């Protein structure tokens, strides 16, 4: 099926009610996964940005099923649960979604290394933007090294997340977009 290139893409229709909930639920699970207390030294500071991975995946493959209001709600939940300044996570995720949506046509029906490179670019930009925003909101200059390390970790783990989300998508929603 040829894909229409626009901000409101035509995608395979979803009939099952559960399928509608899959992207939002998995993104929310990613958020919760990120705050679970894994007893690894330094983990809390360097937790990979799981939510960003989920938002990237769904915005590329099923943007119709992860609406901006869902991204907004998940971003706020993330801020409130993690104790971060409210709104920062929501703002960054929404901007990331907008950026992915603009570049979406380049990623459709491409091989995984291409999608991964796209995520690396987006991830690095987003994490740097998040760092700048946090510095601005908390009126301090955070050590940029831990942000860089976190970015590298996030990019490195993305294939695992992408595989898991792809499997979930195929099992519960149907063919990839």
């Amino acid at each position, binding site marked *: 099926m040829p894909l229409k290139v626009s901000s409101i893409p035509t995608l395979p229709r979803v009939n099952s009610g559960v399928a509608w909930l899959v992207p939002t639920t998995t993104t929310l699970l990613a958020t919760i996964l990120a705050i679970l207390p894994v007893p690894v030294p330094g983990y809390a500071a360097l937790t990979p940005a799981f939510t960003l991975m989920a938002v990237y995946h769904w915005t590329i493959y099923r943007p119709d099923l992860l609406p901006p209001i869902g991204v907004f709600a998940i971003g706020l939940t993330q801020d409130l649960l993690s*104790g*971060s300044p409210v709104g920062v996570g929501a*703002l960054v995720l929404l901007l990331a979604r907008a950026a992915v949506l603009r570049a979406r046509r380049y990623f459709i029906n491409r091989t995984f290394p291409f999608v991964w490179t796209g995520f690396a670019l987006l991830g690095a930009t987003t994490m740097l933007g998040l760092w700048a925003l946090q510095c601005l909101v908390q009126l301090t200059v955070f050590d940029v090294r831990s942000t860089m390390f976190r970015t590298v970790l996030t990019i490195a783990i993305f294939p695992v997340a992408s595989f898991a989300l792809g499997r979930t998508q195929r099992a519960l929603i149907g063919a990839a977009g």
Partner: protein
Amino acid sequence: MIRPSAQLRATIQRTTPPLLILLSAAIVILGKADQTMFETLRTNLTDDAAPVLDALSRPIGAADSVVDWARGIVSMYQENVRLTRENERLLQWQQIALKLTADNGELRGLLKSVPDNAVSYVTARVIANSGGGYVRTVMVNGGADRGLARGQAAITGDGLVGRLTEVGRRAARVLLITDLNSRIPVVIESSHASAVLAGDNSGRPRLLYVSEPNTLKIGDRILTSGDGGIFSPGLPVGVVAALGPGEARVEPYVDLSRLGYVLIVDYGLSGSLPEPVPAVPHSERRVRPAAANEASVR
């Protein structure tokens, strides 16, 4: 049911993302201007999420225990030798402690000194951390219904962890001593110099305003001073681990990245931590005390 026309739906779909981005930006600014604005929302959401986080964090704790157990089996012989030696040493200390307790009791009696406040402990499990690089907090599975209150100290057997900053019904947030916003009045054990331990999100918080900076040396023990009335004096915090020009860093005794259970301690002092002041108009603020007085007169 009225179905919106295709054109209207397209317009809504086009305008929603920028509107939500603007809304998020507005929330960031509002939240910065008035820190208390989202506190109720945060507390409620934390309360609702607590059972989920509690359940999900259990397997992680269990896995960690299994790893510890396996490690224990491997090193059982050496561990036994070490413990036997340590036990001998501790028995000597026990004798000394018993003698000192007796002496202390007699001397206190002579001085008619006031006994320390009664202390109550609540054990709580860590169910979430901050999951990112910009705050250092953990969430614990206990709240107001177990007697927790803002300002109470969180400790482990090793030393100070932090203090409670938000308390819901079922969950509470602990601001770790490494957080950017943490400021703890401390005392250097050897010199009795006072200082403030200031977190900066790194693993080693800084010592600020040291009253006798020249006496500071690596390995000095840092204890809470009890100034400000938030913590009880004498809680172990850490040791001076690095000394630079005008900068001293403290290695906390507690491994803050592997917190399983913490003790929340009530020294009966937490009333002294001021509640966050909501941003109310000045006119309202002036009216309040008068109304309170009136009520008490009646």
